[in-house]
């Protein structure tokens, strides 16, 4: 029976907190498993460095992901080459797997528009800052694939527990149900929407059960168990693309997890939640969990781990160097992407701007 065919309350698990197998290990090759571990470590290291860049004033407000690597990486790694991803604003690791270089992510949070200019071959839409607003886009994108007879590809969209309170969540799932679109709706339920706990978002026992109202499948998974996340996501993607007779394409996945840090670098989680709770969840940290499993099964050892550590440190350092040495964007950029061509009014405003800049220099604009 499919891993998706179960009660929403029946959380899918594969590894326990010691990395011991308690469920069915998904079919996944050794290389992908080690890659999964490597990307999770990379995401964690990137996150630590990004928070520190923000603290040092080298980057603006940044939304950390620590604690959520299991859900993020193990789901994104399940995507096939031709599948699409629609991220929220916290999917830095998943976006990297979809072909968005770390440098771009850094540039975006450094306030450079270029950070949002996805490489042409990356199947990813830009991150959505307004909560849940990306969900209908994902439904529309999947619907387009179906209308274009390309439903052998799926579209996976990420959002948080808070997003499930927004109208756009319901709209997106409802359309997906009605038009049977090849979608995976991946909810990173990290328990907190800034300071508001999951229980304040919904009276529902689970988020997964909300799928029932739209006539689609809903499944809850231990979001800090990367193998369980992989199993569920892979099955949901498969079903989206190749549903069995009478089976619907879309699936809502609720990945139960925890963000170890703040919502963004602008808030202080100690104001609204207890250390005790944080410690409880830290015991479920997806990284040591997968590491223990990989060590026990002979796929990883100290030597390999050291090599991975050295490699990711270099990769992140290089990305930071590249982002910081990127030239400051040209102010004329502001006027260039509103329409295909500048309107006469925009052109007039641009000329007025350049004339003034000539007169007063950049210091006539820049505040400290």
């Amino acid at each position, binding site marked *: 029976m499919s891993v998706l065919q179960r009660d929403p309350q029946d959380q899918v698990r594969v590894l326990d907190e010691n990395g011991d197998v308690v469920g069915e290990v998904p079919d996944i090759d050794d290389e992908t498993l080690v890659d999964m571990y490597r990307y999770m470590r990379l995401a964690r290291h990137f996150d630590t460095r990004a928070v520190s860049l923000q603290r040092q004033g080298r980057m603006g407000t940044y939304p950390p992901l620590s604690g959520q690597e299991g859900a993020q990486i193990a789901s994104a790694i399940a995507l096939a080459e031709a599948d699409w991803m629609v991220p929220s604003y916290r999917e830095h690791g998943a976006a990297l797997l979809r072909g968005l270089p770390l440098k771009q992510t850094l540039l975006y949070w450094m306030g450079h*528009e270029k950070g949002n200019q996805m490489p042409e071959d990356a199947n990813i839409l830009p991150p959505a800052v*307004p909560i849940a*607003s990306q969900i209908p886009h994902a439904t529309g994108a999947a619907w387009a694939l179906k209308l274009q007879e390309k439903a052998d590809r799926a579209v996976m969209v990420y959002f948080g527990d808070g997003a499930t309170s927004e109208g756009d969540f319901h709209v997106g799932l409802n359309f997906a149900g009605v038009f049977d679109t090849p979608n995976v709706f991946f909810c990173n339920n990290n328990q907190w929407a800034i300071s508001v706990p999951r229980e304040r*978002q919904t009276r529902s026992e689970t988020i997964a059960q909300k799928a029932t109202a739209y006539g689609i499948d809903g499944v809850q998974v231990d979001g800090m168990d990367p193998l369980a996340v992989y199993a569920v996501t892979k099955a949901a993607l498969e079903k989206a693309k190749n549903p069995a007779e009478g089976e619907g394409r879309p699936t809502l996945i609720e990945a139960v997890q925890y963000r170890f840090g703040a919502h963004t670098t602008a808030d202080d989680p100690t104001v609204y939640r207890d250390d005790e709770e944080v410690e409880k969840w830290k015991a479920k940290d997806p990284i040591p969990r997968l590491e223990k499993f990989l060590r026990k099964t002979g796929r990883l050892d100290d030597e390999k781990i050291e090599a991975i550590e050295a490699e990711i440190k270099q990769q992140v350092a290089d990305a930071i160097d590249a982002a910081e040495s990127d030239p400051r964007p040209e102010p004329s950029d*502001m006027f260039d992407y509103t329409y295909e061509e500048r309107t006469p*009014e925009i052109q007039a405003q641009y000329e007025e701007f350049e004339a003034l800049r000539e007169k*007063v220099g950049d210091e006539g604009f*820049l*505040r400290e």
Partner: protein
Amino acid sequence: MSSQNLTIVQAVRDGLYTEMNLDDEVLVMGEDVGKNGGVFRATEGLWNEFGDDRVIDTPLAESGIIGTAVGMAAMGLKPIPEIQFSGFMYPGFDQIVSHMARFRTRTRGRYTLPMVLRAPYGGGIRAPESHSESKEMFYAHEAGLKVVIPSTPYDTKGLLISAIRDPDPVIFLEPKLIYRAFRGDVPEEDYTVPLGEAAVRREGSDVSVFTYGAMTRPTLEAAENLAEEGIDAEVIDLRTISPLDREAVVESFKKTGRAVVVHEAPKTGGLGGEITAIVQEEALLYQEAPVKRVAGYDVPYPLYALEDYYLPSVARIEDGVRETVSF
């Protein structure tokens, strides 16, 4: 009266606190306004003081926050919904436009909505995407709403209390760039600053500069710099952009015959166009120069690496004033 030295965001908090103490019907609702005290601390301590039923953390849904506030207000409560950033008001836009603005009209006065929708707005704080827009004209364009934008701590508390006591719905936009930029004396007691009245921040005889919100400070700075060149600019802080204080606009313009309007909202469809129309309608024969608009550009608000080029700067305001005066 005893007074305190507060920032604008502290004056917001003090205005809420003062009015909640005086009127049991007043309540605050929104995302993170309770235990967390608001992402900008505008509701700090209110949850401890007034409890869960009057300082309400809601689910994350702007249409829900604004829509339920409409229902509460119709039943006689005085809800003050907070939207965390004005850039996130749009899921609630239908509620604002179709209902909040129109209950009085649609029911021929049977219902009125004594609610105040608060949100920080505007740029300049190096914030992420969608956190820096100035879309006040969406609301000024909608009849039935009042739109208030303070620029000093004293006005913030006084205007907020007026807004809460006003029988009609008010959009109260707070310039977050200057939330903590400076302090001012704020009485501890309750007091009001009337809605719909502009304030003359600097008297002058050569040119009238109309502005509001966070742009008031660079405008005043520009006026002081220009004084050294012999240009005597009058600076008018509009404070309420709907209804607009036409009388103050016309009176100042008749004195100077020249006008500059400064706002961070995009130029096209901005308040500058309204000011221009007012002086055309009521003071054409006094006009000695075209009205100059120093405004945001007609492009989406840029990410923060370029925001300083987008926002009217002191130098840009000075340049606009010089152009107008030398016409």
